[in-house]
């Protein structure tokens, strides 16, 4: 595993390997089993401070979605945005890499690492999306 590849999303929480595959990191509470994304330091369920940082599963199901037509200048519209429930369970927001008419609530999706613009020096960055496919 390496984290040398520049990433756009909270570098600590998005891990990208040299082969271009990657995963999100979350937190797991060893006392009560709660899962969190993004990572955090205190369990909100039992207030334990010894949370483990874990790799989150890369496959899940789409809880809900929208097609965004008006956004900030940082994003090209339209894009599909959705909440994905990953085993844990834990819910993660991400863009959905699919045509709007292919998207349905409950569909299986998997994490993918995608180009995500550049940083201030022009270095290409990586981010994450979810694409249809896979089984949770």
């Amino acid at each position, binding site marked *: 595993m390496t984290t040398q590849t520049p990433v756009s999303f909270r570098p600590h929480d998005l891990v990208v390997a040299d082969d271009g595959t990657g995963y999100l990191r979350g937190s797991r509470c060893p006392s009560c089993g709660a899962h*969190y994304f993004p990572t955090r330091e205190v369990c*909100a369920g039992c207030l334990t401070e010894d949370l483990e940082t874990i790799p989150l599963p890369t496959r899940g199901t789409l809880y809900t979605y*929208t*097609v*965004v037509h008006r*956004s900030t200048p940082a994003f090209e519209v339209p894009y599909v945005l959705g909440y994905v429930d990953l085993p844990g369970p834990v819910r993660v927001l991400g863009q959905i890499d699919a045509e709007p008419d292919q998207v349905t609530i409950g569909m299986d999706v998997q994490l993918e690492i995608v180009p995500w613009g550049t940083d201030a020096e022009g270095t290409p960055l990586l981010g994450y999306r979810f694409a249809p496919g896979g089984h949770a």
Partner: protein
Amino acid sequence: MTDVYVIGIGMTQFGKHPDRTAAGLGAEAVRGAIHDAEIDPRAIRTAYAGHVFQPMVTGQQVLGQVGLAGIPLANVENACSSGATAIRGSFLDILAGEADVSLAFGTEHLTGAFKGAFTPGEDDPEAAVGATMPAVYAMRARRYMEEFDLTREQLARISVKNKRNAALNPLAHFKKDITIDDVLMAKPIAEPFGLLDCSPVSDGAAAVLLASGDWVQRHGDPSRAIRLAASALRTGKVETAPGSMTFEELTRDTADDAYERAGIGPADIDFAEVHDCFTIAEVLRIEGLGLWEQGTYPAAVERGEADIGGRLPVNPSGGLLGKGHPLAATGVAQVVELVKQLRGEAGSRQIEGASVGIAHCRGGKTVGVEGAACTVQILTR
């Protein structure tokens, strides 16, 4: 424990005021409340100022303009609940005996402040992947459609109802009736929402003066004083597992605090002003408040039950969708509307025989938390 009353209300025109400032709008609303209460302003002992995107110490600027500088004032930021949180500050000062008259106001000047859609905040990890506030509510609407067979037309009817009410409110941002087709054909924002499913960015201010029951008996006009029976505030919980996005536990819990304090239940409520920042939001608020069962409010709107003249009118002022949404002014303006209705001073939008009203605000978003701040206030005649 003393009772707390609203003795004066003031509000500016909501809409676009490109040539004005938050402090100037705030001062106009505060002067309005002082004149409405017919009191010597020197009776005011403490003040709270809600604002979100305004310069620091905007509250002190307002006090300076109205000649009241000197009294204790705190500026309050709780996103869209800022104004309602300011009212809670005044409410608690009176309960604590620190003040017998206290001023709360909210003011916001937003024209020219934003480019593009309103987002949760630059450092929000969800904004980093493309979340906007309309998108977050649109996703809740989409899920509600799936779970409860909500139709696009039913959502549109909420905007039609609130803009119809706004057309009866001289201080509202929107002044025209619209049709369901207008809503369906509006420019898309975040599906299923178009522009008319979203509250506008507005400028405006609103103010209330609160007083203790003793003060009202000795110096006030008990016939115009409206009791503030509860002013509840909660912060959303961090979710330890993915929660429902179609039912608001935060709204329910905050309402339960208010119902308990007021000794009043959902069945006693005659009308409501709720935080309809988007069409679906009115549904989620109303069902969270326990005024309708989960999944049943959209059909009730279709039957006219939430109209002025219906079983339980919702957002008679026009709500955020019709009256406009100058963030921190919103929560105060809701209480202004409750007072007008309960005094019988609401003119052509008067609800006959109303004696108990509820106001609900919810604001802000932070990742992993169901909602940042929520307020529920109950007023009785």
